[in-house]
């Protein structure tokens, strides 16, 4: 038992890994199913309803998955991350950890394992969405899907790093999760300022749609900024937690 295996055990025994798997997996399945059967469903409701629907493409199966993952998936990831990273929420547990290990050694495994779990579960959902789209509708290009998935995974790591930083300001798990989601929304709103948009982490989220529709890879700037923010926020979080009193 060490601080890495502790985190894997936490995910497994608290069923948080299952929750992530259920959220991303179900949306992965729901995306292509919706695209395949929604028009039929609407048709059964009458011609007027069909008229309001834009024409669906195979790529929409994957897009719909990403859209859902962006909402419930991010909320679930924020809560899973907060439950691991807000280790000062219970002072007695904080005392157990802090008097036995350095903050860096406590924090990094929690950040990495939570991020990895969310990223892998997102990728699993994408595999389901991709295969489901291929089987139910038609196969789409794998390349853009792979690149888009990798970029979304980086965004999830960024999200968990935000949770980590917020946990150095707040202590309660729900507080950390909700404030983190709020912070992401605020960061997302910055994309209204057009020159800023390509530099923001949020640009990574929509990459799959752009790449599937034949767009160019224009995400280096967002990737560099996001990576720098992850490193910076992690360093700052550790520094803040190291100086926090229990």
């Amino acid at each position, binding site marked *: 038992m060490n601080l890495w295996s*502790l985190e894997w055990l936490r995910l497994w025994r608290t069923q948080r890994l299952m929750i992530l798997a259920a959220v991303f997996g179900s949306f992965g399945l729901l995306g292509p199913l919706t695209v395949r059967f929604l028009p039929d469903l609407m048709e059964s409701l009458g011609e007027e309803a069909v008229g309001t629907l834009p024409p669906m493409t195979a790529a929409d199966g994957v897009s719909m998955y990403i859209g859902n993952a962006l909402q419930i998936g991010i909320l679930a990831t924020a809560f899973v991350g907060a439950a691991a990273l807000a280790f000062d929420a219970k002072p007695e547990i904080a*005392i*157990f950890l802090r008097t*036995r290990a350095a903050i860096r050694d406590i924090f990094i495994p929690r950040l990495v394992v939570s991020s990895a779990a969310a990223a892998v579960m997102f990728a699993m959902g994408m595999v389901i969405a991709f295969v489901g789209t291929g089987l139910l509708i038609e196969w789409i290009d794998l390349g853009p899907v792979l690149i888009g998935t990798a970029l979304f995974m980086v965004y999830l790591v960024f999200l968990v790093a935000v949770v980590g930083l917020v946990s150095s300001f707040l202590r309660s798990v729900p507080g950390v999760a909700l404030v983190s989601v709020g912070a992401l929304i605020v960061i997302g709103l910055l994309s209204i300022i057009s020159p800023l948009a390509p530099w923001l982490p949020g640009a990574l989220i929509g990459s799959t749609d752009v790449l599937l529709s034949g767009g160019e890879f224009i995400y280096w700037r967002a990737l560099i900024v996001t990576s720098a923010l992850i490193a910076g926020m992690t360093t700052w979080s550790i520094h803040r937690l190291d100086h926090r009193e229990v």
Partner: protein
Amino acid sequence: MNRRSAGTCSLPKVTDRAIHTAALTKKYKDVTALDRVDLDVPRGSVYGLVGPNGAGKTTMLGILAGLRKATSGSVEVAAGTVGVLPDTPQFDRWLTGREVVELSRKLADNGIPSSRVDEVLEIAGLAGDANRKVKGYSRGMLQRLGLAAVVVNEPDLLLLDEPAAALDPAGRREVLDLLSAMRGRSTVLLSSHILEDVQEVCDEIGILRRGEVMYQGSLDGLLSRYSRSGFGVKVRSGAEEIKDLLLDRPWVKSVGVGSDGLLSLVVSDRAAAEQELVGILAGSGHPVQWVNQGTTSLEDVFLEVTR
């Protein structure tokens, strides 16, 4: 101040003291939790830190553990490994008792063999529950598990906050025996409001009141400094008459009379009292049930010091 985790210590070594603080002050906004505290804990001693609620005991332990920062003053902790036990230990509820102790052993990383885990679980009376999840543990079991998780690393210094507060009499006995057994091997600093326990296991004591040290030193020294020579006398009748007889003697400082014929004497000269008291009682002509020599408990002293 340096933060010390088990296995590391970068603070100056002092040979005869495990802990030394000088003018240690801790303020929370306008509240002074510790006020220029000079604390000396001899190496190898079992040191009891006592005081009323809000006296600053937990703050003191927090600073010594590196979990809180002093506002001013200095702290020297001369110990290789430090074990800390909060007053209500908690652990991740989905871990088993054995996993908690094993994690503690692994984190300390000081070469303790894994067989020590079972050993301390046995000592803590948790061998039979070691594979149960912590969420099913009672408060007393959590307290014993916390102690096992500390003791497993054989720390040079143990900082224990109310280690027996949540335990039933049998559990309390086990913990006190465990602490007594550590005398000489480790330095133990424990805070407690159970003065009986402190009197039983501690050889050094510090009394805090409102962040100030009212006394520190050996327990025997404290008791002898504050002990009042006294006697108790129980008579069937004539208590007031005997009181007057006793007050005529120069060695009698005061006599209290209880409702049931119990007289409490405070004397200035114990030898004179031992020589004359029984004669005075016999001469009074009243039936005497018993005479005993009064003793001073830590509780009496504590109440007097912190009054």
